[in-house]
């Protein structure tokens, strides 16, 4: 996967390339999940809803927070993404690893 470096200083920047999605950990197993446009949670980043302005991001996070209050997920937050050739790509090493799983070992049998 191409690593796209995070050159902006704030996750809530009003920059022109403001694309974000919401991620969290699922309550039952802690797995990484992404909020979809159907208010469901998917293990695939390809399913995530992407927003490109602050107002929409606030709405997205609020929906995710409501879901967390319903005890489906833990700790939802916004993170930056880019789209390349129709693919959604997380920005920054931490989010890349959350998406792909550990970069080492033989335990990478993620569903």
């Amino acid at each position: 996967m191409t690593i796209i470096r995070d050159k902006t200083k704030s996750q809530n920047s009003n920059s022109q390339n403001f694309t974000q999605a919401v991620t969290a950990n699922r309550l039952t197993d802690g797995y990484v999940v992404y909020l979809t446009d159907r208010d469901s949670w998917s293990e695939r980043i390809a399913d995530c809803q992407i927003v490109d302005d602050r107002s929409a991001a606030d709405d997205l996070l609020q929906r995710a927070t409501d879901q967390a209050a319903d005890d489906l997920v833990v700790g939802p937050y916004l993170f930056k993404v880019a789209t390349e050739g129709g693919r959604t790509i997380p920005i920054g090493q931490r989010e890349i690893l959350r998406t792909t799983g550990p970069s080492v070992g033989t335990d990478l049998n993620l569903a």
Partner: protein
Amino acid sequence: MYRYDEFDHAFVAERVEQFRGQVARRVAGELTEDEFKPLRLMNGLYLQLHAYMLRVAIPYGTLSAKQMRKLAHIARTYDRGYGHFTTRQNIQYNWPRLEDVPAILNELASVEMHAIQTSGNCIRNTTADPLAGVAADEIDDPRVYAEIIRQWSTLHPEFSFLPRKFKIAVTGSPNDRAVTRGHDIGLRMHRDLAGNPGFEVMVGGGQGRTPIMAKTIRNFLPVDHLLSYLEAVLRVYNQLGRRDNIYKARIKILVQSEGTDTFAQMVEAEWQAIKDNALDLPKEERDRIKAYFGPPGYDDLAGDCPELNLALDLSLAANPRFAAWVEANVQDHKQPGYAIATISLKPHGGIPGDASADQMDAVAALSEKFSFGEIRVSYKQNLILPDVPKLGLLALWRALDGLDLATANAGRISDIIACPGLDYCNLANARSIPIAQRISERFTDLAREKDIGEISLNISGCINACAHHHVANIGVLGVNKGGTEYYQVTLGGVADENARVGAIIGPAFDEWQIAGAVEDIVDVYLRQRQTNEKFIETYQRVGPQPFKEKLYGTDRARQAS
């Protein structure tokens, strides 16, 4: 080994059922995450980057074969077939499901283990010299005192909500193999002039963002006063430690701000008020605990030693790989005819500290065959069979070799301590494991490793320093710059009885440069060393400048100075 008494069994079983109810209420939505989080942390359950992580205590690093088999069973049944042994003599499972955790805790309770106080602002698992009971230089077995501390500190009502986590390490030898000065309290055993055992008490050590080596506040504490003195230290800390700033909440900051002498005086005043009471440890009680840690049924091999040594010498001469393993991984035992064997969990290119369920089962079986069914876990993330007859070493090595557990690198450059790093840890800034793998792959030549000799290389993925990089001869710290991983190098750290913090050598390296930088550091050492000089001795003699010049060139080295 220590066996649970009725109280131990009862409270661990009660705790399992209590947590089962808490998990059920959380899943049913009756507890919010904010309400549940402190409860799960008290039971060692973290939520990490990809999944929950369960940290299980291995008190003073001692396991029976039965316990090791249970750890393997848990890895196979509830996780992904492996476990990760840590620098604090714990094992971590990286993929348990929340609803399975009560069942896991129940399994652990069946072999007298638990995950209580492996997280949270309480007294954590007390660690000890992994060679306890078998080291030739030992005054007394530190596990006796670590077990007494475990009983005193477990669910201690006054110390369950300290300003910050609190770690204690104990060694029964003047040679420190437990990094005692790197702990909130370090206890190192000495004898007084009359020959009585007692502890040097060191307080305020820790690594993290403010690495400080513990200061001695009492040169000699008679062992019967151990608990009252610890209680005095904890009480002063609990009352005065900062709760307003997480970065200044550890006892090391309190000791630093008050001054060592003032802090010692406060402890002394508190101790004088509470000593000679129910916390005293009469000899009978110490002996009762000590009986659990008595030597196994050694054969009297003293008279056979010349023959044993000859047989071993013949085996060594006939098999250079076995000889290399014995040289690196086998240590002298206090009992004639026996040896201490380190099982390296650091295969070249492997993940430091990881063991598969099959390997754990195999080690359990080997411990029964060769070492009275006992296994030790070292802070260096290796396993140890403490009581191996010398004549069994060849058969043991052959068995380990078939399990990929016979890497002859204990104490060598590829015996790397590494934290889980950003591959697993929610706090990490950078990956540790792949860096360790890349470095170890550069040192696969055993002859070269032997030539480099004794050295320590530790890699932490963030400033919390779980891999003890500050006290490594070569320390590597992962940092994040603009979303990209970089690695800062420190040189000159020491983890033994002369513990000291290493110094940053210069600007950080990226993930593709760092392994080469380590090779450069080793090359400088090999060129600069004098006869029989270890890496740290060469570094202390020549200082950082030759290393800086090699790493950064003469001009940049001057700037970095």
